[in-house]
C-alpha cells in the first residue's frame, strides 16, 4: 500500500541509472522528500539549472501528483567531485 503512494530510494536510483548508466547515484531521505547525488561526465560544461532540469524531468509525474514532494539534486562531474576530496586532503596536512 505505502509504496503505491510514495517512491522509495531504490526506485529513484534505478530510474536515474537508466538515463545516466555511468553515473554514481546516491539518495538520502524518506517518504516524499529526497536528496539525490548524481556524479557523471554528462554534466561537463552545464550550469546547475541545466544539470538539474533533465534529472527532475525523469520524475515530472511524481512531482506533479505529490507522490514525490521534494527532490533536491546535487549534480557533479567526477572532476568536481575529486576536487572536493582533494581539498579535504590538503586541509588534513
Amino acid at each position: 500500500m505505502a509504496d503505491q503512494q510514495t517512491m522509495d530510494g531504490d526506485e529513484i536510483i534505478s530510474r536515474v541509472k537508466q538515463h545516466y548508466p555511468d553515473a554514481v547515484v546516491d539518495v538520502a531521505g524518506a517518504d516524499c522528500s529526497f536528496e539525490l547525488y548524481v556524479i557523471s561526465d554528462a554534466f561537463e560544461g552545464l550550469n546547475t539549472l541545466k544539470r538539474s532540469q533533465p534529472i527532475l524531468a525523469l520524475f515530472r509525474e511524481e512531482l506533479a501528483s505529490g507522490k514525490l514532494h521534494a527532490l533536491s539534486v546535487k549534480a557533479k562531474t567526477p572532476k568536481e567531485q575529486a576536487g572536493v576530496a582533494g581539498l579535504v586532503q590538503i586541509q588534513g596536512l
Partner: protein
Amino acid sequence: MRTEDRINKQLAENPVIIYMKGTPEQPSCGFSARAVAAIRSTGVDFAWVNVLESPFILEKLPSISNWPTYPQLFVNGEIVGGCDIVEELLANGELGPLLKQAAA
C-alpha cells in the same frame, strides 16, 4: 485570458518574480520560505505569485519553465531555478548582482 498569456504577462512586467507556495509573509512550504529568505537578504524588490491560490498557474508553469517543483524564481523572464539554486547563487555571491541588474 489564457493561463500561458497570464504567465507571460507576469514575467514581462516583473523582472524579479517568484512563484511560490504561500506568501512571503506566510510561506506554506519550507523550500518557498528558504528561497524568499535568500531573495530578501539581497534587499531587491520582487514580485510573487501564490500558486496555491492559482491552480491553473500551478499546473501550467512547469511545462513553460521545464522545472517541475515550487518555488521557481524568474529573472528577466528566464527561469533561474528552485530553492537549491537560489541558495547556491546566494552562497556564491551571485544572487545580489543578478537581481540588482534585473531590477535596475
